[in-house]
């Protein structure tokens, strides 16, 4: 507990510091980043220790004479704290080079202040022990992240993003509040305590409200539509935090509520699983259609949240049909994917940030061949993309492996779980394939090949902090991927904290599998070394010539004849056209020798279309129809009063 306290003080101090000394720019940055990162590391260690020795920490103070601010740290909270503080640490480090412009130093100082508020509030969200603490931390998180999103406020798109984010986060908060209200009605206390005496319908109502509320923060389809606007708008280290960890608080909330209202509610798992499948597949499909690098990554957050939901949903189904293997391993997979996604998504956002920072171009179609000028960034981005595509020996694979395993173990059950497990496995397979396609596209188009339309400025690898932070994250990807055993064990601590009965059997199975995966990656490494040696031997003393790519007979290739991202993705998007309409406009030239061509395509988001057309517009229309009320004529106003009196007199 003392460790946490120290870290909170440090983070708070690190937040206040820039406001005091923003005039001395570099000093301010050094101090702030130093203190902030120290705070994050302290809390990180505290969380890890807590996870190794899970004893429940409790702390509560009286608040406004009636409420209490109470904090409970169990293994689940600690587990969620790890990615929050770890990623924040790296992101803060990264920001040293990213926020370099000393002209708007006040702005940067303020953004550091709100960053610290954001980190603190996220930590408090996962530590909150009762409703009011939770809501307070939640709302603080929302407002601070909103202000961080508005960093580049001059930009029209940023303003739109901020607006959308504000509205969605607030409506989500209201749904959560409603869920809490229903709980409070039936338990009569603000504390998070397990209440099994609720009737079934009430449980389902609570969970439904919570699912919408937390889902809109986590960004599940169709409540995700703020996400692809808000995350790209923010500066990259902020988007790393938002997309890496902040949306995970939604997951945390859902798991909390699930453990609160008693596990044995039927049907919850199915709903969660289906939500997960839909947002997983659609998220990656929409990502495939994007041109903006950061927006693409944002859509991948939707996809990965979908995968996490699939894991949790399978776990819930396991609980529902009392198949402990399925339950434990499913939850473990989902939770582990929370950490993994935090790592590689923030890594990818940082890579994208470096690209943006060096070239100033967001559009994938204009980039290309960046691996030569930016070798380290490119390699780290490659590792991140391998990890997010769930490819061994990297961390993304481990969690997907666990989810697969629990999905497969559901096959043995009767009708409904059988079909659901088939859905799980197949959707995971399809998501994996699509993610692979999408990230081969990103890496191949952005970092490989020739640059399509580049500014004349020479691009080179600058910024040690960029390199350090990205390399550190890539190492995490490898470590978790190659030595998963210990991490899986820690995850099981969190799973048992939820209340899932984790038996020694599951631990044994998982750790044997994990050890085998470790072995396998070693064998892979040795084989690769062998092949490498073979190749080295074969090429000894051979003449290696460098020439231009063979144009298949075409002799004067230019950079513009390369395959573009849209053309790479087009055939797959064709397949998904019904759910992912593509809006494209282009010029058709009449004459034989066309001078200039233009083709522009935009990936429509069917969730956005749905919400806009069938919820927002009708409400606005209905409300606009009533504007005659304030007609401006005083006679009418007097009439209102008279009418009110007459109507009310009938009720006496």
């Amino acid at each position, binding site marked *: 507990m003392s460790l946490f306290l120290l870290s909170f003080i440090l983070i708070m101090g690190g937040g206040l510091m820039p406001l005091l000394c923003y005039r001395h720019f570099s000093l301010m940055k050094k101090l702030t980043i130093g203190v902030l990162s120290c705070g994050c590391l302290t809390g990180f260690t505290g969380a890890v220790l807590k996870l190794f020795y899970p004893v429940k920490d409790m702390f509560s103070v009286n608040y406004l004479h009636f409420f209490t601010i109470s904090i409970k740290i169990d293994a689940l909270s600690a587990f969620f704290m790890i990615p929050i503080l770890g990623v924040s640490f790296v992101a803060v480090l990264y920001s040293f080079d990213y926020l370099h412009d000393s002209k708007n130093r006040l702005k940067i100082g303020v953004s550091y202040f709100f960053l610290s508020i954001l980190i603190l509030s996220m930590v408090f969200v996962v530590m909150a022990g009762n409703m009011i603490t939770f809501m307070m931390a939640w709302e603080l998180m929302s407002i601070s992240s909103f202000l961080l999103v508005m960093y580049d406020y001059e930009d029209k798109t940023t303003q739109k993003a901020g607006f959308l984010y504000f509205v969605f986060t607030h409506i989500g908060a209201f749904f959560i509040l409603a869920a809490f209200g229903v709980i409070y009605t039936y338990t009569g206390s603000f504390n998070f305590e397990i209440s099994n005496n609720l009737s079934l319908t009430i449980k389902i109502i609570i969970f439904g409200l919570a699912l919408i509320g937390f889902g809109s923060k986590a960004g599940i389809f169709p409540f995700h539509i703020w996400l692809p606007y808000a995350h790209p708008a923010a500066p990259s280290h902020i988007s790393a935090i938002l997309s890496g960890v902040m949306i995970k608080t939604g997951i945390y909330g859902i798991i909390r509520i699930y453990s609160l209202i008693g596990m044995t509610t039927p049907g919850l798992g199915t709903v969660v699983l289906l939500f997960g499948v839909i947002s997983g597949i659609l998220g990656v499909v929409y990502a495939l259609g994007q041109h903006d690098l950061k927006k693409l990554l944002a859509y991948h957050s939707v996809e990965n949240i979908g995968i996490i939901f699939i894991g949790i949903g399978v776990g819930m189904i396991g609980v529902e049909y009392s198949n402990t293997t399925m339950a434990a391993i499913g939850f473990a997979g989902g939770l582990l994917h929370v950490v993994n996604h935090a790592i590689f998504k923030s890594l990818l956002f940082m890579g994208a940030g470096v690209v943006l920072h060096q070239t100033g171009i967001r559009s994938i179609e204009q980039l290309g061949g960046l691996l030569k000028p930016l070798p380290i960034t490119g390699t780290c981005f490659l590792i991140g993309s391998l990890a997010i595509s769930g490819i061994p020996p990297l961390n993304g694979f481990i969690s997907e492996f666990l989810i697969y395993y629990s999905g497969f173990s559901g096959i043995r059950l009767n009708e409904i779980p059988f079909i659901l497990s088939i859905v799980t496995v197949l959707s995971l397979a399809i998501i994996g394939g699509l993610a692979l396609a999408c990230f081969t596209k990103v890496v191949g188009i952005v970092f490989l090949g020739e640059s399509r339309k580049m500014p004349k400025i020479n691009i080179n690898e600058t910024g040690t902090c960029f390199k350090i932070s990205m390399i550190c994250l890539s190492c995490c990807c490898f470590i978790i991927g190659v030595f998963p055993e210990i991490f899986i064990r820690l995850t099981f601590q969190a799973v048992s904290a939820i209340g899932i009965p984790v038996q020694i059997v599951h631990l044994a199975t998982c750790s044997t599998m994990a050890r085998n995966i470790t072995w396998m990656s070693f064998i892979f490494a040795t084989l690769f070394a062998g092949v490498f040696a073979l190749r080295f031997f074969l090429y000894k003393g051979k003449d290696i010539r460098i020439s231009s790519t063979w144009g298949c007979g075409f002799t004067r290739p230019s950079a513009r004849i390369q395959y573009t991202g849209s053309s790479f993705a087009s055939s797959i998007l064709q397949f998904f056209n019904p759910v992912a309409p593509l809006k494209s406009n282009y010029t058709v030239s009449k004459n034989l020798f066309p001078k200039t061509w233009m083709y522009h395509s935009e990936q429509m988001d069917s969730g956005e279309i749905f919400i806009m057309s069938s919820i927002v517009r009708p409400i606005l229309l209905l409300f606009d129809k009533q504007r005659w009320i*304030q*007609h*401006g*004529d005083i*006679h009418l106003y*007097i009439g209102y009063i008279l009418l009110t009196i007459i109507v009310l*007199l009938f009720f*006496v």
Partner: protein
Amino acid sequence: MTQIADIILSLVLLSVLFCLSSSRMMILVKWIAFQGIAISMIQLFFHQQTGFANIAFAIIMSGIRGILIPIFIYIAVKKMGIKREIEPIIGYHASLFAGLLMMVFAAFIGKKFNLHSIGSNPLLLPTAITTLMAGMFLAMTRRKAITMVIGYIMMENGIYLVGISLTKHTHFMIEFGILLDVLVGVMLMGIILNNINRTFDDIDTTLLRSLKD
């Protein structure tokens, strides 16, 4: 004595109907004056004992309601050079009919709350309600801003009718309150109207529609 009260009350009702149906500003003002005098006189016939205080009070009241305020309005009308017509939004016959409807509603209300328990005239409450609503109706359905003031005065008359039906409690304070209400209200409206008249050189409220959404 109550017969006289009944007669006066019915006269008030009559005046209400005439106000609703009259098409000339001057006539309207005259009717209001009449009504004022009537309702300030009426209290004499409620309380069995008619002390000096009551009489004095009645005289003062009728002075203010029956003479002072009408004259004030009269001056305002002259000063603003209003054409004599009232320009109703709802026509005179319709207004008259509405007045009759209001009487029915008032009777319904009067049935609902009876004042017999405190020995009050059964005709009083319906009359009061009618006067009140007619006043609001007048303010609602006449274009000229000055007619709003007249309607407001009529409302106050209605409220006064209810007020004087109470004997024991805080009688004079209520009288005072209502008086203050009428006087200051009318004054203020007069001032504002005067300003408006100076700025818009007309007080047709149809001009006052710029503030809306």
